[in-house]
């Protein structure tokens, strides 16, 4: 083997590595730019007033208080329904189902979590908005719940599978019923992991916009019960970002900052919980 060939191969290696580094830098650049711009453009208008006031007509300084409240309401409702439902389904897939049925359930859950979320908006529009005669916060919450459910089911199944088999066998050997085994042994052991899984799903659904377009619809005023249209932070960002008014556009960045802060807090709690276990 001659020296020139070796040199060529070494060069090729260096060029290849440099290419990978450049690609990685390109992949990471948008993230840091988005993050810094959201802070730079959003922070100046962020105040208590922004978080508590109603949106104002173009040209006047308003806030997104109703949108923050709407997002919390709908995400809260959706979580209250879909987290227990999802964990129950996860437990069934992990511990009860035959392996063939479990594979079918896993596959359907995976397919469902890949369905474009706007289609769930269409579904809930047909099921609830048409029958109830009006866009509503409740319809928004249902759409969000349907989005969360399959992913909570899949991730909680994995958390339940982490619980040692010996623990379950010990409980069953002591005469516990399957329900007692699940409720007193499996769920408490997996509690941290389940909470993390649930929180990540909550974080994801907090930023969902598309499914709310034809369900919650948005509202410029304080929400008037669950059966009336409801504002949401992502919807408000969308409306302001695509508007022609500079003041609204500036507020869209502040809305984005608020939304990201909300998501970061949820993620931080989830991370803290996983770390505390190790």
């Amino acid at each position: 083997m001659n020296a020139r060939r070796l040199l060529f191969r070494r060069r090729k290696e260096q060029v290849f590595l440099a290419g990978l580094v450049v690609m990685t830098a390109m992949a990471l650049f948008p993230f840091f730019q988005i993050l810094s711009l959201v802070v730079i453009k959003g922070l100046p208008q962020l105040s208590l007033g922004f978080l508590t006031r109603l949106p104002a007509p173009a040209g006047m300084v308003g806030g997104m208080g109703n949108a923050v409240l709407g997002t919390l309401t709908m995400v809260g409702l959706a979580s209250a329904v879909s987290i227990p439902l999802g964990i129950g389904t996860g437990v069934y897939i992990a511990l009860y189902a035959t392996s063939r049925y479990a594979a079918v359930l896993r596959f359907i859950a995976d397919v469902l979590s890949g369905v474009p979320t706007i289609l769930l908006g269409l579904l809930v529009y047909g099921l609830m908005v048409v029958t109830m005669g009006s866009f509503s916060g409740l319809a928004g919450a249902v759409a969000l719940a349907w989005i969360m459910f399959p992913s909570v089911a899949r991730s909680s199944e994995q958390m339940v599978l982490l619980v040692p088999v010996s623990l379950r066998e010990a409980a069953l050997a002591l005469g516990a019923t399957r329900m007692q085994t699940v409720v007193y042994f499996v769920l408490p052991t997996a509690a941290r992991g389940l909470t993390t899984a649930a929180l990540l799903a909550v974080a994801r659904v907090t930023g969902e916009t598309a499914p709310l377009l034809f369900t919650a619809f948005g509202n410029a005023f304080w929400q008037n019960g669950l059966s009336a249209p409801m504002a949401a932070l992502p919807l408000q960002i969308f409306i302001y970002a695509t508007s022609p008014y500079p003041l609204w556009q500036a507020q869209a960045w502040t809305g984005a900052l608020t939304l990201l802060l909300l998501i970061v807090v949820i993620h931080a709690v989830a991370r803290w919980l996983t770390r505390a276990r190790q």
Partner: protein
Amino acid sequence: MRKVSQRLADRTFTWMLRLFTFSLFALLGTLTFQLAEASSQAWNRFGLSFLNGKVWDPVRGVFGALPFLYGTIVSSAIGLVIATVVGVSVALLLTQYAGRWVAGPVSFVIELMSAIPSVVYGLWGIFVLAPWIRSGLAPALNASLGFIPLFRGQIYGTSLLTAGLILAIMTIPTITAVVRDVCRAVPDELREGALALGATRQEMIGLAVLPFARSGIVGSVMLGLGRALGETMAVTMVIGNRPQIVASLFQPAYSMASVIANEFTEATSPLYLSSLYEIGLCLLLVTTLFYAMARVLVWRVERRARGTLL
């Protein structure tokens, strides 16, 4: 002997959980049924010509979905080509070169990228990406590659190219995460064998890692494609929303998800609404198809990895 009440409780609990799992079927079933039922009017009226009709004119009641199919396919293709090259590169750097002190933070950032809501990407797209494309990237492409029709014509900020780039950025985390896991599954014997024969790392990647990971990479691309085809908000904000089919990537276009997002609440006639539902049904079928294929391919790699370890 267990008490009767205990047995009853146990049985009720099992049935409750079983009912929960039925709701998975119910959800998929009602979704498919509702989209199919609501789109029947458009289907009866236009049949297959709905899919290759070029005219979308709600005023005259003519609905052809081809411009939206075109916009969705072309923007996703642009996004996926870029995201595959970048995503595979990042994954190779993370698994084959980087030490823990680089791989940890980079993986973390990539993970965070998938946590940013679509509407925030769209916001950035409108105010940063689109102006940059109008005044920077597009003129440069036009000057260097203008002989290709794709890079010719009047330049807009909100265009197919912008939508493609934003889809690339949004699917990079998906592809990177899957390819990273697949590359980790490559048995060490294969990699060490290549290195022991005197291969450089780059040659080792070509000899051992990529052949092993190939179907996993294809799977990750399909997974990313499923995401890209259904991506709604960010695309709606930057694609320009004009139902036309032109060769130039610098021109505005429209996508399947964004026409639903924009026009659904304004659809005045039943046929209009039904046509939008039919676009939704197409979207459901296509994303499900790609998702299923992706799953099968990724499973295959994982099973093979387990096979060699035994």
